Protein backbone atom coordinates (compact mmCIF):
# COMPACT_ATOMS: atom_id res chain seq x y z
CA UNK A 1 0.00 0.00 0.00
CA UNK A 2 2.81 2.32 0.82
CA UNK A 3 5.04 1.67 -2.08
CA UNK A 4 2.38 1.72 -4.74
CA UNK A 5 1.27 5.27 -4.21
CA UNK A 6 4.59 7.04 -3.81
CA UNK A 7 5.68 7.41 -7.38
CA UNK A 8 3.05 7.38 -10.04
CA UNK A 9 4.80 7.76 -13.38
CA UNK A 10 3.62 11.09 -14.59
CA UNK A 11 5.75 13.74 -16.18
CA UNK A 12 6.13 16.84 -14.09
CA UNK A 13 4.92 19.01 -16.96
CA UNK A 14 1.44 17.52 -17.11
CA UNK A 15 1.32 17.72 -13.35
CA UNK A 16 2.05 21.43 -13.41
CA UNK A 17 -0.49 22.02 -16.19
CA UNK A 18 -3.10 20.07 -14.26
CA UNK A 19 -2.33 21.99 -11.08
CA UNK A 20 -2.60 25.31 -12.91
CA UNK A 21 -5.94 24.42 -14.45
CA UNK A 22 -7.28 23.35 -11.07
CA UNK A 23 -6.02 26.64 -9.66
CA UNK A 24 -7.75 28.64 -12.39
CA UNK A 25 -11.02 26.77 -11.81
CA UNK A 26 -10.72 27.37 -8.08
CA UNK A 27 -10.07 31.04 -8.77
CA UNK A 28 -13.15 31.32 -10.99
CA UNK A 29 -15.22 29.82 -8.21
CA UNK A 30 -14.85 33.10 -6.32
CA UNK A 31 -17.14 34.85 -8.75
CA UNK A 32 -19.69 32.13 -9.42
CA UNK A 33 -20.72 31.04 -5.97
CA UNK A 34 -21.25 33.06 -2.87
CA UNK A 35 -21.90 33.12 0.83
CA UNK A 36 -22.12 29.76 2.46
CA UNK A 37 -20.68 27.81 -0.47
CA UNK A 38 -17.61 30.03 -0.47
CA UNK A 39 -17.25 29.45 3.25
CA UNK A 40 -17.38 25.71 2.60
CA UNK A 41 -14.80 26.07 -0.15
CA UNK A 42 -12.44 27.93 2.19
CA UNK A 43 -12.92 25.16 4.74
CA UNK A 44 -12.04 22.55 2.11
CA UNK A 45 -8.82 24.46 1.47
CA UNK A 46 -7.95 24.59 5.15
CA UNK A 47 -8.57 20.86 5.49
CA UNK A 48 -6.51 20.21 2.39
CA UNK A 49 -3.49 21.96 3.91
CA UNK A 50 -3.95 20.05 7.16
CA UNK A 51 -4.16 16.79 5.22
CA UNK A 52 -0.96 17.58 3.35
CA UNK A 53 0.63 17.95 6.76
CA UNK A 54 -0.68 14.61 7.97
CA UNK A 55 0.35 12.99 4.70
CA UNK A 56 3.91 14.26 5.05
CA UNK A 57 4.14 12.62 8.45
CA UNK A 58 2.15 9.44 8.02
CA UNK A 59 2.15 8.90 4.30
CA UNK A 60 5.68 9.92 3.42
CA UNK A 61 7.50 9.37 6.69
CA UNK A 62 5.52 6.42 8.09
CA UNK A 63 4.87 7.91 11.52
CA UNK A 64 1.24 7.21 12.37
CA UNK A 65 -0.56 10.13 13.98
CA UNK A 66 -4.09 9.74 15.30
CA UNK A 67 -4.03 13.09 17.05
CA UNK A 68 -3.34 15.66 14.39
CA UNK A 69 -6.46 17.51 15.46
CA UNK A 70 -4.31 18.79 18.32
CA UNK A 71 -2.06 20.71 15.93
CA UNK A 72 -5.05 21.97 13.99
CA UNK A 73 -6.31 23.25 17.33
CA UNK A 74 -3.00 24.89 18.21
CA UNK A 75 -2.98 26.65 14.84
CA UNK A 76 -6.54 27.83 15.24
CA UNK A 77 -5.97 29.01 18.80
CA UNK A 78 -2.75 30.80 17.95
CA UNK A 79 -4.60 32.78 15.32
CA UNK A 80 -7.53 33.33 17.65
CA UNK A 81 -5.38 34.61 20.48
CA UNK A 82 -3.20 36.77 18.24
CA UNK A 83 -6.17 38.35 16.47
CA UNK A 84 -8.38 38.85 19.49
CA UNK A 85 -6.01 39.45 22.41
CA UNK A 86 -3.05 41.01 20.62
CA UNK A 87 -4.85 42.60 17.72
CA UNK A 88 -2.55 41.21 15.05
CA UNK A 89 -3.53 41.23 11.38
CA UNK A 90 -4.98 38.02 10.00
CA UNK A 91 -2.31 37.64 7.31
CA UNK A 92 0.42 37.76 9.94
CA UNK A 93 -1.41 35.23 12.11
CA UNK A 94 -1.32 32.47 9.51
CA UNK A 95 2.48 32.14 9.28
CA UNK A 96 2.73 32.75 13.02
CA UNK A 97 0.41 29.80 13.62
CA UNK A 98 2.55 27.69 11.35
CA UNK A 99 5.64 28.69 13.30
CA UNK A 100 4.08 27.93 16.68
CA UNK A 101 2.96 24.53 15.40
CA UNK A 102 6.40 23.86 13.96
CA UNK A 103 7.84 24.29 17.44
CA UNK A 104 5.02 22.34 19.10
CA UNK A 105 5.28 19.53 16.58
CA UNK A 106 9.05 19.36 16.92
CA UNK A 107 8.68 19.27 20.70
CA UNK A 108 6.20 16.40 20.50
CA UNK A 109 8.22 14.72 17.80
CA UNK A 110 11.39 14.57 19.88
CA UNK A 111 10.07 12.14 22.51
CA UNK A 112 7.98 10.47 19.83
CA UNK A 113 11.25 9.42 18.19
CA UNK A 114 11.46 6.62 20.68
CA UNK A 115 8.00 5.42 19.76
CA UNK A 116 7.75 2.94 16.94
CA UNK A 117 4.64 2.56 14.79
CA UNK A 118 1.91 1.27 17.02
CA UNK A 119 3.14 3.03 20.14
CA UNK A 120 3.22 6.36 18.38
CA UNK A 121 -0.34 5.73 17.20
CA UNK A 122 -1.28 5.07 20.81
CA UNK A 123 0.39 8.20 22.18
CA UNK A 124 -1.08 10.45 19.49
CA UNK A 125 -4.50 8.87 20.00
CA UNK A 126 -4.28 9.90 23.65
CA UNK A 127 -3.18 13.38 22.55
CA UNK A 128 -6.24 13.66 20.33
CA UNK A 129 -8.60 12.64 23.12
CA UNK A 130 -7.00 14.97 25.66
CA UNK A 131 -6.88 18.10 23.45
CA UNK A 132 -10.30 19.59 24.33
CA UNK A 133 -9.53 19.14 28.01
CA UNK A 134 -6.20 20.92 27.69
CA UNK A 135 -7.85 23.80 25.85
CA UNK A 136 -10.33 24.23 28.70
CA UNK A 137 -7.55 24.37 31.28
CA UNK A 138 -8.41 27.10 33.76
CA UNK A 139 -4.99 28.74 33.98
CA UNK A 140 -5.02 29.30 30.23
CA UNK A 141 -8.53 30.67 30.33
CA UNK A 142 -7.51 34.32 30.19
CA UNK A 143 -6.02 33.57 26.78
CA UNK A 144 -8.16 30.80 25.38
CA UNK A 145 -11.49 32.00 26.70
CA UNK A 146 -12.13 28.61 28.32
CA UNK A 147 -15.28 26.77 27.29
CA UNK A 148 -16.66 29.90 25.64
CA UNK A 149 -13.81 30.12 23.14
CA UNK A 150 -12.90 33.21 21.13
CA UNK A 151 -15.05 35.05 18.61
CA UNK A 152 -13.26 36.53 15.60
CA UNK A 153 -14.26 38.85 12.80
CA UNK A 154 -13.64 38.09 9.18
CA UNK A 155 -11.26 40.51 7.48
CA UNK A 156 -12.53 42.73 4.64
CA UNK A 157 -10.91 42.99 1.24
CA UNK A 158 -8.01 45.49 1.18
CA UNK A 159 -7.14 48.18 -1.41
CA UNK A 160 -10.82 48.97 -1.93
CA UNK A 161 -11.39 45.79 -3.93
CA UNK A 162 -15.08 45.25 -4.47
CA UNK A 163 -15.13 41.75 -3.00
CA UNK A 164 -17.27 40.50 -0.18
CA UNK A 165 -15.55 39.28 2.99
CA UNK A 166 -16.23 35.68 2.02
CA UNK A 167 -14.85 36.18 -1.48
CA UNK A 168 -11.73 37.89 -0.21
CA UNK A 169 -11.00 35.32 2.42
CA UNK A 170 -11.55 32.49 -0.02
CA UNK A 171 -9.02 34.05 -2.38
CA UNK A 172 -6.60 34.56 0.48
CA UNK A 173 -7.00 30.89 1.48
CA UNK A 174 -6.48 29.85 -2.12
CA UNK A 175 -3.18 31.70 -2.32
CA UNK A 176 -2.02 30.21 0.96
CA UNK A 177 -3.08 26.74 -0.16
CA UNK A 178 -1.26 27.04 -3.49
CA UNK A 179 1.83 28.24 -1.66
CA UNK A 180 1.71 25.34 0.82
CA UNK A 181 1.21 22.79 -1.95
CA UNK A 182 4.24 24.12 -3.81
CA UNK A 183 6.34 23.88 -0.65
CA UNK A 184 5.12 20.34 0.00
CA UNK A 185 5.76 19.26 -3.58
CA UNK A 186 9.28 20.64 -3.54
CA UNK A 187 9.95 19.10 -0.16
CA UNK A 188 8.80 15.67 -1.32
CA UNK A 189 10.92 15.85 -4.46
CA UNK A 190 14.04 17.05 -2.68
CA UNK A 191 16.69 14.96 -1.01
CA UNK A 192 14.88 15.54 2.25
CA UNK A 193 11.75 13.98 0.79
CA UNK A 194 13.72 10.96 -0.39
CA UNK A 195 15.22 10.62 3.08
CA UNK A 196 11.74 10.77 4.59
CA UNK A 197 10.52 7.99 2.35
CA UNK A 198 13.64 5.92 2.91
CA UNK A 199 13.05 6.07 6.66
CA UNK A 200 9.44 4.99 6.11
CA UNK A 201 10.37 2.05 3.93
CA UNK A 202 13.27 0.78 5.98
CA UNK A 203 14.53 2.82 8.90
CA UNK A 204 17.64 0.79 9.62
CA UNK A 205 18.71 0.66 5.99
CA UNK A 206 18.24 4.42 5.77
CA UNK A 207 20.32 4.91 8.88
CA UNK A 208 23.15 2.81 7.49
CA UNK A 209 23.08 4.88 4.30
CA UNK A 210 23.96 7.87 6.45
CA UNK A 211 20.53 9.37 6.93
CA UNK A 212 20.11 10.93 10.34
CA UNK A 213 16.85 9.26 11.32
CA UNK A 214 16.12 11.23 14.46
CA UNK A 215 16.78 14.57 12.78
CA UNK A 216 14.51 13.81 9.82
CA UNK A 217 11.79 12.23 11.91
CA UNK A 218 11.44 15.04 14.42
CA UNK A 219 11.80 17.65 11.67
CA UNK A 220 9.07 15.95 9.66
CA UNK A 221 6.89 15.99 12.75
CA UNK A 222 7.46 19.71 13.08
CA UNK A 223 6.84 20.48 9.41
CA UNK A 224 3.75 18.30 9.38
CA UNK A 225 2.38 20.08 12.44
CA UNK A 226 3.15 23.43 10.81
CA UNK A 227 1.09 22.54 7.73
CA UNK A 228 -1.77 21.34 9.88
CA UNK A 229 -1.50 24.47 12.01
CA UNK A 230 -1.75 26.73 8.96
CA UNK A 231 -4.89 24.82 8.01
CA UNK A 232 -6.23 25.35 11.51
CA UNK A 233 -5.46 29.06 11.35
CA UNK A 234 -7.41 29.46 8.10
CA UNK A 235 -10.33 27.51 9.52
CA UNK A 236 -10.43 29.73 12.63
CA UNK A 237 -10.78 32.87 10.50
CA UNK A 238 -13.32 31.17 8.21
CA UNK A 239 -15.55 30.02 11.05
CA UNK A 240 -14.85 33.23 13.01
CA UNK A 241 -14.87 31.21 16.20
CA UNK A 242 -12.64 28.84 18.08
CA UNK A 243 -13.81 26.70 20.98
CA UNK A 244 -12.45 23.58 22.67
CA UNK A 245 -15.28 21.37 21.51
CA UNK A 246 -14.48 21.90 17.84
CA UNK A 247 -11.26 19.99 18.36
CA UNK A 248 -12.41 16.65 19.68
CA UNK A 249 -11.18 13.21 18.70
CA UNK A 250 -13.67 13.37 15.85
CA UNK A 251 -11.54 16.01 14.14
CA UNK A 252 -8.38 13.92 14.44
CA UNK A 253 -10.22 10.92 13.05
CA UNK A 254 -11.70 13.06 10.26
CA UNK A 255 -8.18 13.97 9.21
CA UNK A 256 -7.26 10.29 9.19
CA UNK A 257 -10.33 9.55 7.08
CA UNK A 258 -9.43 12.36 4.68
CA UNK A 259 -5.95 10.98 4.23
CA UNK A 260 -7.18 7.45 3.61
CA UNK A 261 -9.86 8.57 1.16
CA UNK A 262 -7.49 10.76 -0.83
CA UNK A 263 -4.73 8.19 -0.78
CA UNK A 264 -2.02 7.71 1.83
CA UNK A 265 1.27 9.19 0.67
CA UNK A 266 -0.17 11.30 -2.13
CA UNK A 267 -0.11 15.06 -2.33
CA UNK A 268 -3.10 15.69 -4.58
CA UNK A 269 -5.23 13.15 -2.76
CA UNK A 270 -5.43 15.67 0.06
CA UNK A 271 -7.86 17.75 -2.00
CA UNK A 272 -10.25 14.85 -2.47
CA UNK A 273 -9.90 13.91 1.16
CA UNK A 274 -10.61 17.46 2.25
CA UNK A 275 -13.76 17.66 0.14
CA UNK A 276 -14.86 14.33 1.57
CA UNK A 277 -14.52 15.32 5.20
CA UNK A 278 -16.11 18.69 4.50
CA UNK A 279 -19.26 17.50 2.78
CA UNK A 280 -19.96 13.93 3.85
CA UNK A 281 -20.72 14.60 7.54
CA UNK A 282 -23.22 17.25 6.49
CA UNK A 283 -24.98 14.80 4.18
CA UNK A 284 -24.86 12.09 6.83
CA UNK A 285 -26.39 14.40 9.40
CA UNK A 286 -29.60 14.16 7.38
CA UNK A 287 -29.83 10.44 8.19
CA UNK A 288 -29.07 10.55 11.87
CA UNK A 289 -26.96 12.44 14.37
CA UNK A 290 -24.41 9.68 14.67
CA UNK A 291 -24.42 8.60 11.05
CA UNK A 292 -21.24 10.52 10.23
CA UNK A 293 -19.25 8.33 12.59
CA UNK A 294 -20.74 5.20 11.07
CA UNK A 295 -20.05 6.30 7.51
CA UNK A 296 -16.50 7.27 8.41
CA UNK A 297 -16.02 3.90 10.02
CA UNK A 298 -17.38 2.00 7.03
CA UNK A 299 -15.32 4.11 4.65
CA UNK A 300 -12.13 3.45 6.62
CA UNK A 301 -12.64 -0.32 6.60
CA UNK A 302 -13.91 -0.54 3.02
CA UNK A 303 -11.04 1.54 1.67
CA UNK A 304 -8.47 -0.57 3.47
CA UNK A 305 -9.94 -3.73 1.98
CA UNK A 306 -11.06 -2.61 -1.43
CA UNK A 307 -8.99 0.38 -2.51
CA UNK A 308 -6.12 0.97 -0.10
CA UNK A 309 -4.64 3.56 -2.47
CA UNK A 310 -7.62 5.87 -2.04
CA UNK A 311 -8.91 8.07 -4.83
CA UNK A 312 -5.40 8.73 -6.14
CA UNK A 313 -4.73 5.01 -6.23
CA UNK A 314 -7.88 4.56 -8.26
CA UNK A 315 -6.82 7.28 -10.69
CA UNK A 316 -3.37 5.74 -11.04
CA UNK A 317 -4.94 2.36 -11.72
CA UNK A 318 -7.27 3.83 -14.32
CA UNK A 319 -4.29 5.52 -16.01
CA UNK A 320 -2.35 2.30 -16.13
CA UNK A 321 -5.31 0.45 -17.58
CA UNK A 322 -5.75 3.20 -20.16
CA UNK A 323 -2.11 3.08 -21.24
CA UNK A 324 -2.17 -0.69 -21.39
CA UNK A 325 -5.21 -0.78 -23.64
CA UNK A 326 -3.67 1.89 -25.90
CA UNK A 327 -0.41 -0.01 -26.16
CA UNK A 328 -2.33 -3.12 -27.08
CA UNK A 329 -4.10 -1.21 -29.82
CA UNK A 330 -0.85 -0.11 -31.48
CA UNK A 331 0.88 -3.47 -31.18
Amino acid at each position, binding site marked *: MRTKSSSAPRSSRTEILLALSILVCAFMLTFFVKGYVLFQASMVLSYAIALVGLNLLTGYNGQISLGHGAFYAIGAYTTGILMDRVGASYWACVPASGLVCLVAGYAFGMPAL*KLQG*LYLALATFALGV*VTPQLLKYKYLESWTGGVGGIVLTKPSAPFGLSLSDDQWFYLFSLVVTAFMFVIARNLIRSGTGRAMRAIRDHGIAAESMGIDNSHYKSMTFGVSAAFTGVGGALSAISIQFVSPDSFTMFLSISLLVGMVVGGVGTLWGSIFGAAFIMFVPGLAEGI*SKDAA*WGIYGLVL*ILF*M*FVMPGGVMGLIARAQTAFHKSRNKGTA
Partner: protein
Amino acid sequence: MESFIQQLVAGLATGSIYASLALALVMIYQATHQVNFAQGEMAMFSTFIAWTLIQFGLPYWVAFFATIAFSFVTAGVIEFVVIRPLHKAAELSVVVVFIGLLMIYHSAAGWLFGSSIKEFPSPFSKDAWYGGQLMSSHQVGSIFVALCMVAVLFTFFRFTTLGLTMRAAAQNPGSSRLLGVNVGRMLMLGWGLAGAIGAAAGMMVAPVVFLDPGMMMGVLIYAFAGALLGGIDNPVGAIVGGFLVGVLENLIGTYVVGTELKLSVALVLIVAVLIVRPAGLLGRRIVQRV
Protein backbone atom coordinates in the same frame (compact mmCIF):
# COMPACT_ATOMS: atom_id res chain seq x y z
CA MET B 1 -5.41 11.72 56.12
CA GLU B 2 -8.87 10.21 55.95
CA SER B 3 -9.59 11.93 52.66
CA PHE B 4 -6.28 10.67 51.36
CA ILE B 5 -7.22 7.09 52.14
CA GLN B 6 -10.64 7.67 50.64
CA GLN B 7 -9.05 8.88 47.41
CA LEU B 8 -6.69 5.94 47.46
CA VAL B 9 -9.54 3.47 47.77
CA ALA B 10 -11.62 5.24 45.15
CA GLY B 11 -8.55 5.03 42.92
CA LEU B 12 -8.37 1.30 43.46
CA ALA B 13 -12.03 0.98 42.51
CA THR B 14 -11.69 2.84 39.21
CA GLY B 15 -8.35 1.13 38.80
CA SER B 16 -10.11 -2.22 38.80
CA ILE B 17 -12.04 -1.10 35.74
CA TYR B 18 -8.94 0.15 33.97
CA ALA B 19 -7.24 -3.08 34.91
CA SER B 20 -10.01 -5.14 33.31
CA LEU B 21 -9.98 -3.16 30.09
CA ALA B 22 -6.17 -3.19 30.06
CA LEU B 23 -6.35 -6.95 30.46
CA ALA B 24 -8.60 -7.14 27.41
CA LEU B 25 -6.13 -5.04 25.42
CA VAL B 26 -3.23 -7.23 26.50
CA MET B 27 -5.11 -10.41 25.56
CA ILE B 28 -5.30 -9.19 21.98
CA TYR B 29 -1.84 -7.67 21.93
CA GLN B 30 -0.24 -10.86 23.17
CA ALA B 31 -1.88 -12.94 20.50
CA THR B 32 -1.56 -10.72 17.46
CA HIS B 33 0.63 -7.72 18.37
CA GLN B 34 -2.21 -5.38 17.57
CA VAL B 35 -3.60 -2.68 19.79
CA ASN B 36 -7.37 -2.77 19.68
CA PHE B 37 -8.39 0.87 19.54
CA ALA B 38 -12.02 -0.24 19.39
CA GLN B 39 -11.87 -2.10 22.71
CA GLY B 40 -13.53 0.72 24.65
CA GLU B 41 -16.35 1.21 22.18
CA MET B 42 -16.99 -2.52 22.03
CA ALA B 43 -17.36 -2.53 25.80
CA MET B 44 -19.67 0.47 25.61
CA PHE B 45 -21.87 -1.28 23.06
CA SER B 46 -22.03 -4.39 25.25
CA THR B 47 -23.10 -2.26 28.18
CA PHE B 48 -25.95 -0.89 26.09
CA ILE B 49 -27.00 -4.45 25.36
CA ALA B 50 -27.05 -5.16 29.09
CA TRP B 51 -29.06 -2.00 29.66
CA THR B 52 -31.63 -3.09 27.07
CA LEU B 53 -31.94 -6.54 28.62
CA ILE B 54 -32.46 -4.98 32.04
CA GLN B 55 -35.09 -2.67 30.54
CA PHE B 56 -36.90 -5.78 29.34
CA GLY B 57 -37.12 -6.84 32.94
CA LEU B 58 -34.37 -9.42 33.17
CA PRO B 59 -32.68 -9.72 36.56
CA TYR B 60 -29.29 -8.01 36.69
CA TRP B 61 -27.09 -11.06 36.85
CA VAL B 62 -28.95 -12.83 34.03
CA ALA B 63 -28.45 -9.74 31.88
CA PHE B 64 -24.83 -9.58 33.00
CA PHE B 65 -23.97 -13.07 31.88
CA ALA B 66 -26.07 -12.87 28.73
CA THR B 67 -24.13 -9.75 27.79
CA ILE B 68 -20.84 -11.45 28.49
CA ALA B 69 -21.86 -14.30 26.20
CA PHE B 70 -23.03 -11.89 23.51
CA SER B 71 -19.78 -9.93 23.65
CA PHE B 72 -17.74 -13.10 23.51
CA VAL B 73 -19.48 -14.18 20.31
CA THR B 74 -19.44 -10.80 18.56
CA ALA B 75 -15.78 -10.19 19.32
CA GLY B 76 -14.96 -13.63 17.93
CA VAL B 77 -16.95 -12.91 14.80
CA ILE B 78 -15.19 -9.58 14.32
CA GLU B 79 -11.84 -11.27 14.57
CA PHE B 80 -12.90 -13.75 11.92
CA VAL B 81 -14.49 -11.30 9.51
CA VAL B 82 -12.49 -8.09 9.83
CA ILE B 83 -9.18 -8.72 11.56
CA ARG B 84 -8.04 -12.05 10.22
CA PRO B 85 -7.69 -10.94 6.60
CA LEU B 86 -5.33 -8.23 7.85
CA HIS B 87 -2.75 -10.41 9.55
CA LYS B 88 -0.05 -9.52 7.06
CA ALA B 89 -1.15 -5.96 6.35
CA ALA B 90 0.93 -2.87 7.08
CA GLU B 91 0.69 -1.36 10.53
CA LEU B 92 -1.15 1.69 9.28
CA SER B 93 -3.88 -0.38 7.61
CA VAL B 94 -4.49 -2.27 10.84
CA VAL B 95 -4.69 0.90 12.88
CA VAL B 96 -7.05 2.45 10.34
CA VAL B 97 -9.35 -0.57 10.44
CA PHE B 98 -9.44 -0.48 14.23
CA ILE B 99 -10.35 3.18 14.16
CA GLY B 100 -13.05 2.28 11.64
CA LEU B 101 -14.44 -0.32 14.03
CA LEU B 102 -14.39 2.22 16.83
CA MET B 103 -16.47 4.63 14.78
CA ILE B 104 -18.96 2.01 13.64
CA TYR B 105 -19.58 0.85 17.19
CA HIS B 106 -19.96 4.42 18.37
CA SER B 107 -22.40 5.27 15.64
CA ALA B 108 -24.38 2.06 16.02
CA ALA B 109 -24.80 2.67 19.74
CA GLY B 110 -26.01 6.21 19.16
CA TRP B 111 -28.35 5.05 16.43
CA LEU B 112 -29.86 2.08 18.26
CA PHE B 113 -30.02 3.42 21.78
CA GLY B 114 -30.01 7.20 21.42
CA SER B 115 -27.24 9.45 22.61
CA SER B 116 -28.97 10.71 25.75
CA ILE B 117 -27.24 9.87 29.02
CA LYS B 118 -28.76 6.90 30.80
CA GLU B 119 -28.52 5.58 34.30
CA PHE B 120 -27.15 2.11 34.61
CA PRO B 121 -27.94 0.06 37.71
CA SER B 122 -25.31 -1.42 39.95
CA PRO B 123 -25.87 -4.91 41.32
CA PHE B 124 -24.42 -3.80 44.61
CA SER B 125 -26.36 -1.70 47.08
CA LYS B 126 -25.91 2.04 47.10
CA ASP B 127 -24.93 2.29 50.75
CA ALA B 128 -21.49 2.32 52.20
CA TRP B 129 -19.87 -1.04 52.60
CA TYR B 130 -20.78 -2.55 55.95
CA GLY B 131 -21.46 0.89 57.34
CA GLY B 132 -17.81 1.88 56.87
CA GLN B 133 -17.18 5.38 55.55
CA LEU B 134 -14.30 4.31 53.38
CA MET B 135 -15.87 2.87 50.27
CA SER B 136 -19.21 2.16 48.67
CA SER B 137 -20.49 -1.31 47.97
CA HIS B 138 -20.20 -0.68 44.26
CA GLN B 139 -16.50 0.09 44.61
CA VAL B 140 -15.92 -3.07 46.56
CA GLY B 141 -18.05 -4.95 44.07
CA SER B 142 -16.17 -3.78 41.00
CA ILE B 143 -12.83 -4.61 42.57
CA PHE B 144 -14.25 -8.03 43.43
CA VAL B 145 -15.51 -8.61 39.88
CA ALA B 146 -12.13 -7.65 38.44
CA LEU B 147 -10.28 -9.96 40.79
CA CYS B 148 -12.72 -12.78 40.02
CA MET B 149 -12.05 -12.38 36.31
CA VAL B 150 -8.33 -12.50 36.92
CA ALA B 151 -8.70 -15.65 38.99
CA VAL B 152 -10.84 -17.35 36.36
CA LEU B 153 -8.48 -16.38 33.55
CA PHE B 154 -5.44 -17.43 35.51
CA THR B 155 -6.98 -20.83 36.20
CA PHE B 156 -8.00 -21.15 32.59
CA PHE B 157 -4.60 -20.35 31.15
CA ARG B 158 -2.58 -22.16 33.78
CA PHE B 159 -4.52 -25.36 34.38
CA THR B 160 -6.53 -26.25 31.30
CA THR B 161 -5.33 -27.80 28.04
CA LEU B 162 -7.24 -25.23 26.03
CA GLY B 163 -5.53 -22.45 27.95
CA LEU B 164 -2.14 -23.98 27.29
CA THR B 165 -2.97 -24.36 23.60
CA MET B 166 -4.01 -20.72 23.42
CA ARG B 167 -0.77 -19.58 25.00
CA ALA B 168 1.18 -21.72 22.59
CA ALA B 169 -0.69 -20.32 19.61
CA ALA B 170 -0.01 -16.78 20.76
CA GLN B 171 3.69 -17.30 21.47
CA ASN B 172 4.67 -19.41 18.54
CA PRO B 173 1.99 -19.69 15.89
CA GLY B 174 4.26 -21.51 13.43
CA SER B 175 5.23 -24.39 15.68
CA SER B 176 1.74 -24.62 17.14
CA ARG B 177 0.35 -25.04 13.66
CA LEU B 178 2.80 -27.85 12.99
CA LEU B 179 1.60 -29.54 16.16
CA GLY B 180 -1.94 -29.49 14.89
CA VAL B 181 -3.23 -26.45 16.76
CA ASN B 182 -5.85 -24.48 14.92
CA VAL B 183 -4.18 -21.10 15.47
CA GLY B 184 -6.95 -19.15 13.79
CA ARG B 185 -9.53 -20.57 16.14
CA MET B 186 -7.33 -19.80 19.13
CA LEU B 187 -7.01 -16.17 18.06
CA MET B 188 -10.77 -16.01 17.64
CA LEU B 189 -11.15 -17.40 21.15
CA GLY B 190 -8.68 -14.83 22.47
CA TRP B 191 -10.66 -12.04 20.86
CA GLY B 192 -13.85 -13.47 22.34
CA LEU B 193 -12.33 -13.48 25.80
CA ALA B 194 -11.10 -9.92 25.35
CA GLY B 195 -14.60 -8.86 24.28
CA ALA B 196 -16.11 -10.55 27.32
CA ILE B 197 -13.64 -8.97 29.74
CA GLY B 198 -14.23 -5.56 28.17
CA ALA B 199 -17.99 -6.01 28.54
CA ALA B 200 -17.60 -6.70 32.25
CA ALA B 201 -15.46 -3.57 32.59
CA GLY B 202 -18.11 -1.54 30.79
CA MET B 203 -20.90 -2.80 33.03
CA MET B 204 -18.84 -1.97 36.10
CA VAL B 205 -17.96 1.55 35.03
CA ALA B 206 -21.40 2.51 33.68
CA PRO B 207 -23.03 3.08 37.11
CA VAL B 208 -20.23 5.53 37.94
CA VAL B 209 -19.85 7.53 34.71
CA PHE B 210 -23.41 6.95 33.38
CA LEU B 211 -24.19 5.28 30.12
CA ASP B 212 -23.69 7.13 26.84
CA PRO B 213 -21.85 6.37 23.60
CA GLY B 214 -18.83 8.45 24.59
CA MET B 215 -18.35 6.96 28.03
CA MET B 216 -15.46 4.63 27.26
CA MET B 217 -13.17 7.02 25.39
CA GLY B 218 -11.53 8.29 28.57
CA VAL B 219 -11.54 4.87 30.18
CA LEU B 220 -9.76 3.48 27.14
CA ILE B 221 -6.96 6.03 27.48
CA TYR B 222 -6.50 5.08 31.13
CA ALA B 223 -6.52 1.43 30.14
CA PHE B 224 -3.83 2.13 27.51
CA ALA B 225 -1.79 3.84 30.19
CA GLY B 226 -2.34 0.90 32.53
CA ALA B 227 -1.41 -1.69 29.93
CA LEU B 228 1.73 0.20 28.95
CA LEU B 229 2.74 0.85 32.54
CA GLY B 230 2.47 -2.82 33.38
CA GLY B 231 4.01 -4.00 30.16
CA ILE B 232 1.72 -4.48 27.19
CA ASP B 233 2.58 -8.15 26.73
CA ASN B 234 2.03 -9.15 30.34
CA PRO B 235 -1.47 -9.89 31.74
CA VAL B 236 -0.35 -9.59 35.34
CA GLY B 237 1.32 -6.32 34.41
CA ALA B 238 -1.95 -5.07 32.93
CA ILE B 239 -3.77 -5.70 36.20
CA VAL B 240 -1.06 -4.08 38.31
CA GLY B 241 -0.74 -1.21 35.83
CA GLY B 242 -4.50 -0.65 35.73
CA PHE B 243 -4.77 -0.42 39.50
CA LEU B 244 -1.72 1.86 39.64
CA VAL B 245 -3.15 4.19 37.00
CA GLY B 246 -6.44 4.34 38.88
CA VAL B 247 -4.70 5.34 42.09
CA LEU B 248 -2.33 7.77 40.37
CA GLU B 249 -5.15 9.38 38.44
CA ASN B 250 -7.15 9.97 41.61
CA LEU B 251 -4.30 11.20 43.75
CA ILE B 252 -2.72 13.44 41.12
CA GLY B 253 -6.16 14.65 40.09
CA THR B 254 -7.05 15.55 43.66
CA TYR B 255 -3.81 16.95 44.97
CA VAL B 256 -1.78 18.19 42.02
CA VAL B 257 -3.49 19.19 38.80
CA GLY B 258 -7.20 19.33 39.62
CA THR B 259 -9.97 17.12 38.30
CA GLU B 260 -10.37 18.80 34.92
CA LEU B 261 -6.89 17.75 33.85
CA LYS B 262 -7.15 14.15 35.04
CA LEU B 263 -7.15 12.73 31.54
CA SER B 264 -3.94 14.57 30.73
CA VAL B 265 -2.30 12.59 33.51
CA ALA B 266 -2.93 9.52 31.40
CA LEU B 267 -1.34 11.15 28.34
CA VAL B 268 1.74 12.18 30.29
CA LEU B 269 1.94 8.72 31.81
CA ILE B 270 1.71 7.04 28.40
CA VAL B 271 4.44 9.19 26.89
CA ALA B 272 6.62 8.95 29.99
CA VAL B 273 6.41 5.17 30.21
CA LEU B 274 7.12 4.78 26.53
CA ILE B 275 10.20 6.94 26.79
CA VAL B 276 11.65 5.87 30.11
CA ARG B 277 10.75 2.23 30.15
CA PRO B 278 9.01 1.09 26.94
CA ALA B 279 8.69 -2.47 28.19
CA GLY B 280 6.69 -1.35 31.21
CA LEU B 281 7.18 -2.47 34.78
CA LEU B 282 6.72 -6.16 34.20
CA GLY B 283 7.09 -6.53 30.45
CA ARG B 284 9.86 -8.26 28.59
CA ARG B 285 12.36 -6.14 26.76
CA ILE B 286 12.14 -6.79 23.10
CA VAL B 287 15.40 -6.99 21.23
CA GLN B 288 15.00 -6.67 17.52
CA ARG B 289 17.22 -8.71 15.30
CA VAL B 290 18.29 -7.00 12.15
